[in-house]
């Protein structure tokens, strides 16, 4: 089901689509694999703090991540493991951050989903939901002021995150500035334990697109084919000057909110509904149906993903933790340090 406010050009399975689909599928496998591993490490007590996984949301996330080119900007959210990988975040960053290694992008100063590479335009999120929308918008404003062309930015938000003032202000600003921003709203039916009906009252969150004056699409987030088509379309529209694009993807979170949460409050029937499908299984079947891969090929890909994760994990585990005695307790990058506070 592709349901946009303005009809997109027909998205027939174009040349290269198979390649893209397969590539996206492999990133999904890798994301699921590394997350399964992180979950296991967390349960084994090897990961400090929370553990927020993207199970069931790989198709949506990868579809956006894979459409971005180097030079584009990506502001991923909690469950964007797959998109991060597709956009180029190394597996090392994920594991180093979850394991708090000094070698990681935050040097152990921040954890789990808060990693990023600002210089390479992967923006680290802060926990406060919605805050990244205006940051990505500002980066795009800057590119335009600098005379750049042919760039887009993408970021995502959950059904719950749409209730934040930050989200509203940031997205409205992007609309006013007509920025090439692709916003994915991943409606996984819950914000932590809070169901949609306690979060918003509209029929479909895509109903908000018209109120911002942007193009909007509503899609089945469990079908990689649809995700890729819509994301391709939205990214292309954004890149071509049609302003912000809002993609609302429906799916179901396939775990609890985090590894400490069993999600027992979730409606059992949801998992039997079409959007309750596991996007990896759906894509797997599709690949086989299309004859783009057979079972043993998929099996091999899975194995490769496992091996990649194991390999990186082995190396990362041997890397050093941050050493408090060597820590530079200074939040300023300029020369201005307060001697009374840095002691």
């Amino acid at each position: 089901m592709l349901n946009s406010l303005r009809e997109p050009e027909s998205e027939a399975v174009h040349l290269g689509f198979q390649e893209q689909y397969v590539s996206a599928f492999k990133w999904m496998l890798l994301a699921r694999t590394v997350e399964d591993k992180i979950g296991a490490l967390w349960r084994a007590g090897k990961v400090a703090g929370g553990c927020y996984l993207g199970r069931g949301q790989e198709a949506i996330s990868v579809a956006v991540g894979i459409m971005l080119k180097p030079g584009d900007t990506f502001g991923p959210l909690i469950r964007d493991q797959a998109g991060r990988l597709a956009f180029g975040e190394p597996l090392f960053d994920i594991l180093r951050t979850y394991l708090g290694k000094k070698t990681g992008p935050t040097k152990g100063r921040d954890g789990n989903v808060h990693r990023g590479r600002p210089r390479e335009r992967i923006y680290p999120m802060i926990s406060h939901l919605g805050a990244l929308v205006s940051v990505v918008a500002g980066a795009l404003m800057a590119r335009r002021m600098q005379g750049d062309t042919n760039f887009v930015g993408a970021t995502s938000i959950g059904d719950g995150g749409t209730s934040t003032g930050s989200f509203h202000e940031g997205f409205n600003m992007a609309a006013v500035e007509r920025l090439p921003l692709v916003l994915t709203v991943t409606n996984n039916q819950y914000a932590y334990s809070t169901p949609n009906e306690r979060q918003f009252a509209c029929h479909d969150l895509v109903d908000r697109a018209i109120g911002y004056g942007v193009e909007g699409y509503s899609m089945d987030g469990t079908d990689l084919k649809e995700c890729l088509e819509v994301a391709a379309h939205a990214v292309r529209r954004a890149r071509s000057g049609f302003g912000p694009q809002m993609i609302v993807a429906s799916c179901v979170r396939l775990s609890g909110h985090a590894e400490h949460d069993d999600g027992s409050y979730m409606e059992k029937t949801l998992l039997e509904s079409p959007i309750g499908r596991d996007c990896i299984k759906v894509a797997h079947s599709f690949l086989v149906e299309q004859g783009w891969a057979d079972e043993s090929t998929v099996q091999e890909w899975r194995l490769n993903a496992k091996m990649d994760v194991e390999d990186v994990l082995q190396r990362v585990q041997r890397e050093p933790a941050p050493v408090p005695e060597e820590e530079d307790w200074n939040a300023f990058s300029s020369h201005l340090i307060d001697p009374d506070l840095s002691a």
Partner: protein
Amino acid sequence: MSVTYLEAIRAAQAKALRENPNVYIYGQDVATYGGAFKSTKNLAKDFPGRVLDSPISEDAMVGSAIGASLEGMRPIVEMQFADFSANGFNQIVNHAGGYFYRTGVSCPITIRMPSGGNPGSGPFHSQCLESVYAHFPGLIIMTPATVEDAYTLLLEAIAIDDPVLFFEHKFLYNRVKAEKLPEHFSFSAGKARIHRPGRDLTVVSYGVTLYDSLAAAAELEKEGISIEVVDLRTVKPIDTETILHSVANTGHLLCISEGWPWGGVTAEVVARVASKGFHLLDSPPERMNSRDTPVPYHPDLWLAHKPSIGAIAKKIREMLDW
């Protein structure tokens, strides 16, 4: 039978809901789920329609509580983490804070602020924001350290006619216990307490660092040093009298907080004692805080970020050598 700090918070809310039909609880995941820390567990079931899940809208959560309070309700807003109150900042400091002074009508809301660090919680789930809110007029700032205070101060917060920010410390939730909850008590917000009497030096603290202070005091006792430990309990208003009384006995002051160093509780306490108790002091008043950076994620960095028991003991030894 014993009761944890977390259970005390739940029990206080249950008691308030039971005894006052105008009390209700509003916050993310407080109903069915019972709250991210389970501090409202079962309350939605026991008090139907009075424990409500909110959208992720801290500004509106606080705003709605203000409106409800004007209608005679006694709302309890739970921030999922105190850190997220940053998004409700304007409603707290500008709307609720000044309400009484501007209009002559009071605004009795309670905002529960799960605060402070835990290993691995990182920059956005660890903050101690009591000093930020204490700077603004009209807000009462409670920082209970003990199970008993978690219980009685929360009940008092709900009863008080002003907006109260209740900074409960997450590290203490399941780590401190009491035999049972107090049955008979009188309200005492704004009063500090001598938690441990001593002769040689006064340590003023609150929240989690109260325990670090007590541990340091125990260590120093073996060396023959007798430390008096004052628990502030409420950081606005501050009970200057009790502090000065203690300093009058010991002649030395060290104030300790897990919050950031610039301009917080410790600066306020030291400045008050320096002004009002200058002649009582036999050595420079000192303070200890966490480092002036975001709270780091890695447990080792986190431990080094805040005042440790060892560092406290060392500081005290230095002060008494002075």
